[in-house]
C-alpha cells in the first residue's frame, strides 16, 4: 500500500511537472500565432515591407517557442499510457478519441503549414503564405480544442456509461463529450488566456526595444496590436472565467470550497478578497480556517450561482452531507462522503458479483447485481477511499493559486489599458524607463498568472482523475515508485536544460534585434 501511494504521488508529480512545463509554451504559441497572423494580414493588405519584417521577427520567436511546446506535448500523451495505464483502459474508449482527432486534424495542419510559414516566403505566393500562417494559428487552436475536450471530460464526465461486461466506461454520445458546457467554456477560457499572454509578451518585448532605444516604430506597432489582442483576450478570459466558476460550483463543489478555503458554507456566502489561511487548519480540527481575511459580502454566492441568496457548501458540509433551505426557499441537499464511500463500495462489490454471476451463468444474481451497480455507479470512485478526508484537495495551493489568478488578471487589465493609452495618446510616456520596466517585468507575471489558473483547475480537482469515478490512486500503472522517481528527475534535468536554452535563445534573438532596426 505504501508503494502504491508512493507511485501515485510520484506519478502525479511527474505529470504535474510535465503539464506545467508544457503550459509555459502553449499559451505563447496560441497568442503569438494569432498575433503573427494578424501582422501578416496587415502586410498582405498594405503591401508595406515593414509589416513583413515585423511579422518575420515575431515569427522567429514563435518558432523557437513552438518547438519546445511540441517536445513537451508528446510526453503528456505518452504519460497517459506509461503512468496512468489503468486510467487509459478505464476510460480509453472515450478519452482516446479526442487525442486521436487532435492528431489527425490539428497536428498535421500545424506541422504542414508551419513549414510554409518559415520556409515558404520565396516558394509560394503571398496569399498562399498568409493562408498557411492562418492555418497554423487555426491548427494551434484546433489542437487546444481537442485536448481541452479531453481535459474537460475528466472534470465533468459526460456522454458515457459504464459497461459492466467490459468493466470500463464507454462512450454513448460523442456530441455530449465534445459540446459539454465545461468543454466549451474551458476551451474559450484557455484560448483567450493565450491571447492575453501573447499580448503581454509582445508588449513586454516591445518595451525592451524601447528600453534599448531602438526600433521605436516596430515597438509602437507591436504595442498597439499586442495591446488590443491582449485586452480583448483578457476581457473574454474574465467573461469565460465567470462561466467556469458557475460550472465548478455545479459539478465540482469541493474544488470551489478549496478555492475559497471555505469549511462551513452558508446562505449568502461571502467571497474572500484577500486572506491568509491558517496552516494548522484541517478537516479534523475546529480551528478558524483563516488567520486574516477581507471578505466581500455575498460575493461567493453571486460568483458561484449568480444568486446572492444561494447556499455554497464548504468542505465540512460536503464531507458531512447537508440539507439546507437557501435564501430563495429552495432545499439543497447532498450525501455525506461516508455515505458516498459506502455506496461506491456497494457499486464495486456489485460489479464483482455481476462478474462472478456471469461466469457461473447465474442470471438472477447477475440481474440483481446489475441493478445495485446502476443505482450506485455515480459514486463508484468513492469506493476506493478508506476515509472521507481523502476526498479533500490540497486547500492552500488551490486557495492561493486562485487569488494569484484573479488578482493577476485585474493587474493585467490595468496593464493593457495603460499600454494602449500610452501607444495612442501619450507616446512620449513610452520614453520613460520605469514604464519600460513595467512592461518587461509583466512578462513573468503573466506566466505566473496563467500557470496559477491551471493549478486551480488541476490541483483543485484532486484526488480525482475523473470526477467522482476514478481517483488518482486507482488510475496508475503497476510500476515501482523508484522507476517513476528516476524518470521524474530525468525530466527535471531535460526540462531545466530546455528552459535555460529556450530563454537564452529568446533573449539573444530579442537582444540581437534590439541592436538593429528590424523594419529596415
Amino acid at each position, binding site marked *: 500500500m505504501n508503494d502504491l501511494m508512493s507511485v501515485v504521488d510520484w506519478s502525479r508529480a511527474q505529470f504535474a511537472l510535465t503539464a506545467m512545463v508544457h503550459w509555459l509554451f502553449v499559451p505563447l504559441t496560441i497568442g503569438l500565432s494569432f498575433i503573427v497572423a494578424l501582422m501578416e494580414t496587415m502586410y498582405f493588405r498594405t503591401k508595406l515591407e515593414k509589416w513583413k519584417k515585423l511579422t518575420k521577427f515575431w515569427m522567429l520567436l514563435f518558432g523557437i517557442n513552438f518547438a519546445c511546446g511540441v517536445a513537451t506535448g508528446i510526453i503528456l500523451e505518452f504519460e497517459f499510457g506509461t503512468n496512468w*495505464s*489503468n486510467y*487509459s483502459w478505464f476510460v*480509453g474508449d472515450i478519452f482516446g*478519441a479526442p487525442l*486521436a482527432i487532435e*492528431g489527425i486534424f490539428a497536428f498535421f495542419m500545424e506541422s*504542414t503549414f508551419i513549414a510554409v510559414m518559415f520556409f515558404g516566403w520565396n516558394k509560394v505566393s503571398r496569399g498562399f503564405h498568409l493562408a498557411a500562417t492562418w492555418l497554423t494559428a487555426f491548427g494551434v487552436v484546433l489542437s487546444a480544442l481537442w485536448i481541452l475536450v479531453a481535459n474537460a471530460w475528466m472534470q465533468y464526465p459526460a456522454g458515457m456509461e459504464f459497461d459492466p461486461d467490459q468493466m470500463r466506461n464507454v462512450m454513448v454520445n460523442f456530441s455530449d463529450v465534445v459540446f459539454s458546457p465545461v468543454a466549451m467554456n474551458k476551451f474559450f477560457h484557455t484560448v483567450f488566456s493565450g491571447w492575453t499572454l501573447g499580448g503581454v509578451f509582445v508588449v513586454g518585448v516591445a518595451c525592451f526595444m524601447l528600453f534599448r532605444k531602438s526600433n521605436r516604430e516596430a515597438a509602437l506597432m507591436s504595442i498597439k496590436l499586442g495591446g488590443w489582442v491582449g485586452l480583448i483576450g483578457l476581457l473574454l478570459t474574465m467573461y469565460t472565467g465567470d462561466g467556469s466558476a458557475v460550472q465548478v460550483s455545479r459539478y465540482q463543489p469541493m474544488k470551489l470550497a478549496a478555492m475559497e478555503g471555505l469549511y462551513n458554507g452558508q446562505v449568502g456566502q461571502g467571497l474572500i478578497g484577500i486572506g491568509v489561511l491558517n496552516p494548522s487548519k484541517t478537516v479534523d480540527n475546529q480551528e478558524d480556517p483563516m488567520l486574516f481575511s477581507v471578505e466581500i459580502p455575498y460575493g461567493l454566492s453571486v460568483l458561484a450561482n449568480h444568486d446572492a441568496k444561494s447556499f455554497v457548501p464548504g468542505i465540512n458540509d460536503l464531507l458531512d452531507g447537508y440539507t439546507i433551505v437557501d435564501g430563495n426557499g429552495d432545499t439543497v441537499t447532498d450525501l455525506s462522503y461516508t455515505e458516498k464511500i459506502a455506496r461506491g463500495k456497494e457499486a464495486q462489490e456489485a460489479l464483482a458479483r455481476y462478474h462472478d454471476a456471469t461466469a457461473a451463468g447465474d442470471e438472477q444474481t447477475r440481474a440483481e447485481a446489475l441493478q445495485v451497480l446502476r443505482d450506485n455507479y455515480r459514486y463508484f470512485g468513492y469506493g476506493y477511499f478508506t476515509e472521507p478526508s481523502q476526498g479533500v484537495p490540497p486547500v492552500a495551493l488551490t486557495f492561493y493559486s486562485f487569488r494569484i489568478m484573479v488578482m493577476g488578471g485585474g493587474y493585467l487589465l490595468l496593464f493593457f489599458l495603460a499600454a494602449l493609452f500610452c501607444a495612442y495618446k501619450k507616446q512620449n510616456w513610452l520614453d520613460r524607463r520605469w514604464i519600460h520596466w513595467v512592461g518587461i517585468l509583466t512578462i513573468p507575471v503573466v506566466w505566473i498568472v496563467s500557470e496559477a489558473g491551471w493549478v486551480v483547475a488541476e490541483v483543485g480537482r484532486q484526488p480525482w482523475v475523473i470526477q467522482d469515478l476514478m481517483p488518482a490512486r486507482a488510475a496508475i*500503472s*503497476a510500476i515501482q515508485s523508484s522507476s517513476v522517481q528516476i524518470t521524474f528527475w530525468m525530466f527535471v534535468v531535460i526540462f531545466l536544460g530546455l528552459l535555460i536554452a529556450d530563454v537564452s535563445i529568446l533573449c539573444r534573438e530579442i537582444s540581437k534585434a534590439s541592436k538593429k532596426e528590424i523594419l529596415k
Partner: protein
Amino acid sequence: MTLSLLQSYWWLLISILGALLVFLLFVQGGQTLILFQKNNMARQMTVNSLGRKWELTFTTLVVFGGAFFASFPLFYSTSFGGAYWLWMLILVSFVIQAFSYEFRRKPGNLLGTRFYDLLLFLNGIFGCVLLGVAVGTMFFGADFVVEKGNIVNGASPVISSWKSPLHGLEAIFSFPCLLLGFTVLYLARMQASFYLLNNLSGDAVVTSHYRRTMVLNSGIFLVLFLTFLAVLFTAVGYEYSADGTVTAVQYKYLMNLVEMWWFGALFLIGVVLVLYAIFAAIFKPGKNNGIWFTGIGTFLVILSLFAILGYNNTCYYPSVADINSSLNIANSSSTHFTLEVMAYVSLFIPVVILYIWYVWRKMDSKPITPQEVLEDDHLY
C-alpha cells in the same frame, strides 16, 4: 457496420499509419548521417533538408499513438504501462529531436551546434532501434498479464501487470526484437540516402557521398531484412478462437501471408520495388528518384507485416506470461460506438493527405541548393 468490421478497419488504419511512420523514419536515418558528415556545406544542406520534414514524422508518430489509444486502448494501457522503460526511452529519444533542429544554430543555445547534432544522432539511432524493438514485442511476445477484475480491488486496482522487473528493457536483449530494431535503423538510413539524393541538388560532392552511403546501407539492410524474415516466418504465432481461447501456431505469420494472399502480393510488390530502387540507383547513377520506389515499397511491406500481425485471428500482442492474456483486435478494441464515430472522422484523412501532398509538392518543387542554404534567413 459490424463491430468486427470496424475492428478490422481500425487495424487497417493503424497499419497504414505504422507503414507511413516507418517510411518517414528516413528523417531519423538521415540524422545518423549528419554527425560524421565532414563537409560543412553538405551537413548544412542535409540538416535543412531533413529539418523541413521532421515534424511530419513526429506528427505521424503522435497520431499513430493517438489512434492506437483511441481504437485499441487495452494495448496502450498494457504496453505503455508495463514496458515502462522501453517507452520512456523511445519518448526521450524523440523529445530531444523536437527542439534540436530549432536550437542547433541559434545564438545563445548554450551547448553549441555539435551538441544538438549529437542529440539528432541519438534520436536517429535510438528512435529507430527502439521503435523496432517495441514492434518486435508485438510479433514475438511480451511479459504481461491482464486481469480486468482487478478494477474492483481497492488495494491493487491495476488490470495490466508486467511480469519482468525490467519493464520493457528485457525486449532490448531479445534477439528477434533487436534484429527488427536494427533492420528498421538501416532501412531508415537507406531511405535517407535516397531522399537526400532526390532533395539536394547542385553539389557533386554531396551527391557522390550519399550515393556511397546508399549502397552501403542498402547492403546491410538487405542482410538484416532477410534474416528478420527468416526468423519471423519460422516463428510461433498465437491464434485466438471464437470463444477467446488462444493457441500457439508454428509458422503462423508465414501462413497468414499465404492465406491472405492479397497481402502476400502487396508484400512481394513492396520488396520488388525496394530492390528495383537499389539496383537502379547502382546501375543507373544519373537517376535520383529512388525514394519514390523505396518509399512505396517500404509502405507496402510494412502494411503487409502489420496485416499478418493483426488479421486472420492472430494475437497482435502475445503474452509470454499468460497466453490467454494475449491481445487481439477483438478483445482490446474500443466499443462499436467509438470505433464508428472515429471511422467517420477517419473519412477526412484523405483530405489531410491531399493538403500535405499539395503543400510539399509546392515546397519541394525545386531541390535545396547550396545557394538557398547560404541565403535563406530561416535556417536550421
